[in-house]
């Protein structure tokens, strides 16, 4: 029997919205409008994607999968780009990075028969990989910018001692990668102990045997771990050089970074 939540039951979800709404009203947080709007928007988005997925799942996989993956990658690129717009070629680097990550992961899945080339398997799993990679790239860009600002003295010192930008940035690159990878290492360490991962929970609720659900969860968790590492590494290694000009001089502010793009 397929699990079913009736529409009437869904209506009672409004109680979950009323809790933060009441808190906002009581403590005058001024967030009531945001709470109502985000709840409505989230509901509409989810139903819309539900219908779109139903449509895509019925399509020929060779059409539906590339179409949806392209849309996801482009949206993810724009989102991550917002975190480092002032950096030259950031858009292209992120786009290329996401394509490389997704193609690599998908190739491995298919080559080792972990996932079937059907929209219902590839699209949701790729969505998780692309989404996590997007977050990792955005975080890496933000972290890199703040590390460059905070460590400008050290970078100047390194350059003045004869270091090339790649050598001077070593510390920044290490810190950025650490920051991007640590949350994932922690998540993997506690997986199944602190919280049951979303995908596994979904599969179990959908009637799949727990051991099979765990296998899928392992595939996705380790794929995400790998793709997040690759994304952070790719964006960091591709972008650090834009904090310097061609004369191995540190660019000190956003204006100088922007001027370099021209």
């Amino acid at each position, binding site marked *: 029997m397929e699990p079913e939540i009736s529409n009437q039951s869904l209506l009672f979800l409004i109680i979950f919205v009323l809790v933060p709404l009441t808190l906002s009203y009581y403590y005058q947080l001024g967030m009531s409008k945001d709470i109502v709007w985000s709840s409505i928007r989230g509901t509409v988005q989810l139903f819309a994607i539900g219908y779109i997925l139903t449509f895509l799942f019925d399509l020929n996989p060779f059409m539906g999968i590339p179409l949806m993956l392209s849309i996801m990658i482009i949206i993810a690129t724009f989102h991550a780009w917002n975190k480092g717009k002032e950096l030259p070629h950031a858009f292209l680097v992120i786009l290329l990075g996401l394509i490389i990550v997704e193609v690599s992961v998908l190739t491995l899945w298919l080559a080792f028969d972990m996932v079937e080339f059907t929209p219902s398997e590839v699209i949701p799993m790729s969505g998780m990989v692309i989404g996590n990679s997007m977050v990792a790239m955005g975080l890496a860009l933000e972290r890199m910018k703040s590390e460059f600002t905070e460590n400008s*003295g*050290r970078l*100047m*010192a*390194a*350059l*003045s*001692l*004869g*270091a*090339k930008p790649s*050598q001077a940035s070593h*510390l920044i690159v290490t810190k950025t990668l650490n920051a991007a990878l640590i949350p994932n290492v922690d998540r993997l360490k506690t997986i199944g102990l602190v919280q049951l991962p979303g995908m596994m929970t979904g599969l179990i609720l959908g009637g799949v045997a727990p051991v099979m659900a765990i296998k899928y969860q392992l595939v996705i968790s380790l794929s995400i771990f790998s793709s997040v590492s690759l994304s952070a590494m790719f964006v960091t290694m591709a972008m650090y050089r834009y904090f310097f000009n061609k*004369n*191995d*001089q*540190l660019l000190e502010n956003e204006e100088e970074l922007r001027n370099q793009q021209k």
Partner: protein
Amino acid sequence: MEHTVFQFQNVSDDILHNLNFKINKNEKVILFGPSGAGKSSLLFLFNRLRDPKQGDINYNGKPITEYVISQLRRKVGLLLQSPNLFPGTVLDNLKYGPSLCGEWNPDDAKKLLEYVQLPESYLNRKVDQLSGGEQQRVSLGRTLANSPDVLLLDEPTSALDYRTAEEIEEVLERLIEEHQLTMIMVTHDLKQAKRLGERGLFLMDGELKEDGDLESMLTDPKTEELKEFIQD
């Protein structure tokens, strides 16, 4: 005959305006002037941490742009206001510069610590366990590890208390003499300037207002700007 180390000809950028001067070997030059005068901006031109928009800078008779940047920076060492040490030990910092080009000799570590008057036991000490003065000594040792000919100093004692500043000053004075270094120092402290410098370059609003013997400049300023600056 005096050997010219640096020659500036019509050097200008957004901050500095039409600078013309020479610096000879072993000179002890003080760049001074009010905040925002362009002192640090000028200092960073000597080792190409900045480049001017116009004009020519020659180093040892050759345009500065013809040198390999990393090699130029090794020869024209810089000590900043803050030590800016790299995470790790004193040894990690001392060997940083020479290691970049595979020239580190482990025997140099002891010698460098002697230069900056730190005990040998400090070699494997983590830099974050050191006091401000000790960190600045390590930073100086790190700069000297590259065996520079010119030493650029950007207010090297301004972040330190009076006593520690005096100690660093003594170390600097001795090392500059011993190693026959050409020194170019930015400082706000006119007393320190007199103690360490021989020649003064007085900058204001990016212009070189006075250039000459430091003692005479401070006792008998030629320009109104310098008179006012000294009185302040």
